[in-house]
């Protein structure tokens, strides 16, 4: 979801695997964790860099639509809460970049690829947050969908990725609850407030469903990633779980899911629902969503405007170190 279209590399039938590759797959099958300096197939390493990188980018780009509302939060308490949530997301990005770096890619390289458009982030962050109800919908639905995807990833085969996921999951439930709390307030408020909440749900519902990536039948890279345990559930499985979890939550709010085909299916014990418009999804991923330019523009500007600061701190650190060294020499 935060990594929606990750091309996996080096899928191979078992009879073509080298003894090393077979031994590696057996370790994964036994549930062992793979650690940074250990041998791994090149395809595993590359696919992970792509997936963890995309996930990290999503965390930091995801700060933008919410950061937008920090100064306009309706109360001081809401402002403090939203600020803490957005700060958490920066931390999530950091944990994930660090995990990716253990695979031999540098932080600067990853950022360069994000800024040049060579690496993606989740499509969801290319939709605008138009009003305060949207902040509630984002926490409830977007962080809710993120949790669906991230909880199973705590068991992923790559040690640093798994540990990053465990840290992240501890913080995510705060995110979803603060969003739902905003929705409860709005839904129980004036008719206008309730209408805003409904409107936010209407706009975020299908983009949230897209977060899990294309339907399984169109998702060509799943099998290898699942064998490597860097993907645990299929896109459709997670989407179904998300819908089943969210429908009663919407009902509690007295809001309706914007899907006329939504119906309980006794046989599967879950809800039947309409697929999102996949042509819209592919257009947004390709760079043509409502906010792609704005988001990437804000990222690049922040990076460039911060260069003097990063350089300044480094220069200060180097000077201080030189001074310490000189003092040591003088003392000897």
């Amino acid at each position, binding site marked *: 979801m935060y990594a929606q279209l990750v091309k996996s590399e080096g899928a191979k039938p078992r009879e073509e695997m080298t003894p090393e590759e077979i031994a590696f797959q057996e370790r994964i099958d036994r549930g062992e964790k793979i650690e940074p300096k250990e041998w791994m197939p090149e395809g595993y390493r590359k696919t992970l860099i792509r997936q963890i990188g995309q996930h990290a980018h999503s965390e930091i780009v995801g700060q933008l639509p919410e950061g937008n509302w920090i100064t306009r939060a309706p109360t001081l308490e809401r402002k403090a809460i939203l600020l803490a949530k957005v*700060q958490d997301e920066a931390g999530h990005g*950091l*944990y994930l970049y*660090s995990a990716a770096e253990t695979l031999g890619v540098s932080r600067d390289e990853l950022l360069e690829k994000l800024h040049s458009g060579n690496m993606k982030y989740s499509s969801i962050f290319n939709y605008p947050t138009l009003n305060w109800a949207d902040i509630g919908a984002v926490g409830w639905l977007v962080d809710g969908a993120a949790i669906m995807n991230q909880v199973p990833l705590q068991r992923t085969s790559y040690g640093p990725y798994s*540990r990053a996921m465990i840290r992240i999951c501890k913080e995510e439930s705060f995110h979803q609850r603060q969003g739902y709390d905003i929705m409860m307030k709005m839904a129980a408020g004036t008719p206008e407030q309730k209408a805003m909440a409904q409107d936010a749900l209407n706009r975020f519902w299908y983009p949230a469903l897209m977060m899990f990536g294309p339907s399984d039948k169109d998702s060509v890279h799943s099998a290898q990633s699942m064998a490597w345990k860097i993907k645990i559930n299929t896109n459709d499985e997670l989407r179904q779980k998300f819908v089943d979890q969210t429908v009663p939550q919407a009902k509690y709010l007295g809001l309706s899911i914007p899907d006329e085909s939504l119906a309980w299916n006794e046989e599967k014990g879950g809800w039947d629902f309409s697929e999102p418009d996949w042509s819209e999804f592919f257009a947004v991923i390709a760079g043509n969503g409502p906010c792609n330019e704005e988001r990437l523009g804000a990222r690049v500007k922040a990076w460039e405007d911060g260069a003097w600061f990063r350089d300044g*701190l480094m220069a200060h650190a180097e000077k201080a170190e030189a001074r310490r060294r000189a003092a040591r020499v003088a003392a000897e």
Partner: protein
Amino acid sequence: MSSQWPLWEIFIRGQHGLNHRHVGSLHAPDAEMAIRNARDVYTRRNEGVSIWVVPSNAITASSPSEKGPLFEPSNAKVYRHPTFFDIPEEVGHM
């Protein structure tokens, strides 16, 4: 232009009386900033009472490919475990 800040490994003592434990890493220009940044990301919810930061390149690790020869010797020494010895029940807890 900009060179990337060095990488630091972060260790946090979760509670008084426990060991520092590795929690992750981060980039910072120097040790002092590494501690401040570690405070900001790794102790946001009362996770710690003390922080160590260590330059990543100062850590020497055992080699994964030598896991066998390095750790095997102790596998054969089962008598190092208290459960190796059968102590009669009459003796009581030992």
